């Protein structure tokens, strides 16, 4: 039953097509005004026209005829073609994927533009609870009751019940929400009844012709009998009587021949009328069945039920079989797999079940909303709207429920574009909102997917950062591109962009860095190493940057250690610190460029002024070749700081000179 119910999705895609088919089949447009048996009589003559068209098919029109009995599915594709009813391919929905196939294309019911548009339009509409709508529904209910009554009443074409039903349908046709369906059904009924009246007229004509035939036969029999008698009398008379007996016999024979010809003509006309009756009846049935199927497919289940019930009243011959090819899939579908041919009763049952399904769906929607299960409520409402958009329970669904489902639906609708745009932040936000609206909403898969993709993007950004520090522009660009490909709106990409801007703006920094290196202002570079870090991208400047940072770091570390040592021994500490600073300064001239080093050297020189004076005097004396003074000053320095390397080495050096000299 569920599979069958999905055929009602057809109007969502091809409702207009179905309507045009109905019109093409001579059902005519709905008319305003009343309906009477006289109308039926007037239409009786025109009802024969389709029959003539059927007998004389126009080859030129065949090009515009739908591919009846043919499917859009390529027979070699391996796909099962959709069933067809009266030449129209029926859409089938695959519940496993919520996809509907029609005309060779597949549609996602939940994401089909047409379905979505119809559903959104429905959500934005106010409940149709106007006085006209209430009057319409009341009338509909009364007509349905009448159809049930007609099933029990005497079956006669043009009965008062049928007239009431048809008039009621024309009244309902005036309601704008009816969409002209009632008028179309009424017209179909009128056409079918007119065809029945035409058949009656032909039957009466046949009866009169039969009476005339009977009379002619009787007359002919009399004439034949007379001729026979004359011949017998002639044979019994001798001489002249016998020679004149042939003339009257010739005159009766001509009349008999004329009567016989006329009887044949009348018989042929009667046979022709009988054949026309059969053809007209079949055509009328097909037209009416087509209308009922159209109503069913347009989800006008009430109309379909009315049509199905009145069918048996209009066509009282008991033949309710649908005119389907018994081998067709449609016939198999309608028969429900029980091996019986599909009938009008099947259609009525189908319409009734669909009404019940839609009502149950709407009841479920109300219950789900009461429990804040918006996801389930939305799914049920989509199905209810798709299957029974024109049902009373759907049309009167309260605006508050529509608003809540619309809010949830909007979020759900936004999720797909966000996913397509790989905006995982937005997707998580949507999932969070959906979760807030519907606690039962399972966002674990969505959030896990988003988290994974975001992590992937961030991983590429980390690689890009590493490449940036390594000065690998190619890898940096590739990683940034990959990160953007995975998560275009990754906020960390903005940071990467800032790094790029740094690279773009590094020339002034690079120039400043080179100036500072030229001036040997390493401490300035050290103090602003965050600013000058970007120059490390340049392999040439990278070494200089590292040297400057390492040098000042070493000096600062050394000064810290010397400060501690100097505080522990206030006598020799300054001497030790001074000598060490002096030694390092002489080993690496860059030390002397550092103001902090120079300050420390001066500070320790003041603290160990005797030691420093002795060393300086020793060096000056040594340079002046005053070796006696030099050696005695080295000795003095050693006395002040026995572990002095400079004093020891100086003393050793001068001692050797003195010992080797000649006096």
């Amino acid at each position, binding site marked *: 039953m569920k599979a069958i119910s999905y055929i009602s999705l057809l109007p969502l895609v091809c409702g207009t097509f179905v309507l045009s088919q109905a019109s093409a089949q001579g059902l005519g447009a709905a008319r305003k005004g009343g309906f009477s048996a006289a109308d039926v009589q007037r239409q009786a003559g025109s009802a024969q026209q389709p029959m003539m068209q059927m007998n004389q098919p126009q080859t030129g029109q065949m090009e515009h005829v739908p591919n009846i009995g043919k499917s859009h599915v390529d027979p070699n594709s391996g796909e099962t073609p959709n069933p067809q009813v009266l030449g129209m391919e029926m859409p089938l929905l695959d519940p496993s994927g919520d996809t509907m196939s029609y005309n060779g294309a597949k549609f996602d019911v939940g994401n089909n533009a047409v379905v979505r548009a119809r559903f959104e339009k429905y959500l934005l509409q106010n409940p149709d609870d106007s006085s006209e709508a209430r009057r319409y529904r009341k009338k509909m209910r009364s007509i349905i009751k009448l159809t049930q009554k007609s099933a029990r009443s005497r079956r006669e074409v043009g009965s008062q019940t049928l007239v009431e039903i048809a008039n009621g349908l024309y009244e309902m046709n005036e309601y704008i929400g009816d969409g002209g369906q009632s008028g179309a059904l009424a017209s179909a009924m009128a056409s079918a009844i007119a065809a029945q009246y035409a058949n009656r007229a032909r039957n009466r004509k046949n009866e009169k012709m039969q009476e005339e035939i009977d009379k002619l036969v009787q007359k002919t029999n009399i004439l034949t009998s007379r001729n026979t008698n004359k011949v017998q009398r002639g044979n019994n008379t001798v001489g002249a009587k016998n020679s004149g007996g042939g003339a009257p016999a010739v005159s009766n024979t001509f009349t008999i021949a004329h009567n016989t010809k006329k009887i044949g003509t009348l018989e042929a006309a009667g046979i022709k009328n009988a054949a026309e009756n059969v053809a007209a009846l079949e055509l009328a049935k097909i037209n009416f069945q087509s209308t009922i199927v159209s109503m069913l497919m347009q989800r006008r289940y009430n109309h379909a039920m009315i049509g199905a019930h009145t069918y048996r009243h209009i066509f009282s011959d008991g033949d309710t079989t649908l005119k389907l090819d018994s081998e067709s899939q449609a016939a198999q579908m309608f028969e429900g797999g029980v091996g019986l041919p599909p009938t009008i009763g099947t259609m009525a049952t189908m319409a009734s079940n669909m009404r019940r399904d839609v009502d149950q769906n709407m009841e479920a929607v109300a219950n789900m909303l009461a429990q804040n299960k918006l996801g389930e409520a939305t799914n049920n409402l989509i199905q209810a709207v798709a299957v029974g958009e024109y049902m009373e329970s759907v049309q009167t669904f309260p605006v508050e429920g529509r608003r809540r489902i619309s809010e949830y639906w909007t979020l759900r609708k936004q999720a797909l574009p966000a996913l397509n745009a790989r905006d995982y932040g937005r997707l998580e936000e949507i999932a969070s909102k959906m979760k807030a609206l519907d606690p039962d909403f399972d966002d674990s898969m969505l959030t896990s997917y988003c988290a994974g993709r975001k992590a992937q993007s961030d991983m590429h950004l980390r690689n890009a950062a590493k490449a940036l520090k390594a000065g690998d522009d190619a890898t940096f660009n590739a990683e940034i591109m990959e990160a953007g490909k995975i998560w275009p709106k990754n906020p960390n990409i903005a940071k990467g962009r800032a790094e790029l801007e740094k690279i773009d703006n590094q020339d002034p920094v690079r120039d400043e860095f080179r100036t500072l290196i030229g001036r040997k202002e390493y401490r300035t570079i050290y103090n602003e190493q965050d600013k000058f870090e970007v120059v490390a991208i340049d392999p040439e400047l990278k070494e200089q940057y590292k040297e400057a940072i390492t040098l000042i770091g070493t000096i600062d570390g050394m000064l810290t250690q010397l400060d501690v040592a100097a505080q522990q021994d206030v006598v020799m500490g300054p001497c030790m610190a001074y000598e060490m600073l002096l030694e390092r300064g002489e080993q690496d001239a860059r030390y002397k460029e550092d103001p902090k080093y120079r300050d420390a050297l001066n500070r320790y020189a003041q603290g160990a002024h005797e030691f420093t004076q002795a060393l300086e005097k020793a060096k000056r004396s040594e340079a002046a070749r005053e070796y*006696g*003074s030099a050696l*005695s000053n080295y000795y003095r320095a*050693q006395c002040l700081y026995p572990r002095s390397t400079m004093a020891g080495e100086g003393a050793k050096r001068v001692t050797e*000179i003195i010992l080797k000299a000649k*006096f």
Partner: protein
Amino acid sequence: MARKRRSSKNKKSQLPLVLGGGGAVLALAIGAAVVMKPSEEQKETADSRFNIADYRQDASRLTGNTYRLTARVENIETLGNDRLVAVSLPNNKQERLPLLVRSGVTGRVNLTRGDTFAFHVACRNGQDAEGREVKGVMIVEKVETD
């Protein structure tokens, strides 16, 4: 400040005056010796004119001067038979004075670290192997045990 010792030159025309003065000086010296009776330390500091600080400041100014210094041997550096001895003076034990002791100068005196000796020294200039000056070096001329 120590003065440069001038070399004595006898002038015959001033002989009576010198003799008279010498006698007076002698008398004063004897009198002072009797009255003041000098201590043991003063005896050790044989030549109080010498000051290590002065020497450190400008040894060249003392070139040519001779001194008798009583000093304690603190360190000895040797090169062949020559030695460079670092000594400390009794009145200034915080400083060291370098003395060049040539081979054979000490005679039979054995210089040992920690012992005190009387050094007769002269401040001289010399030359290294390349002929460049080596100025203001105290050369030991004689060593006596203290």
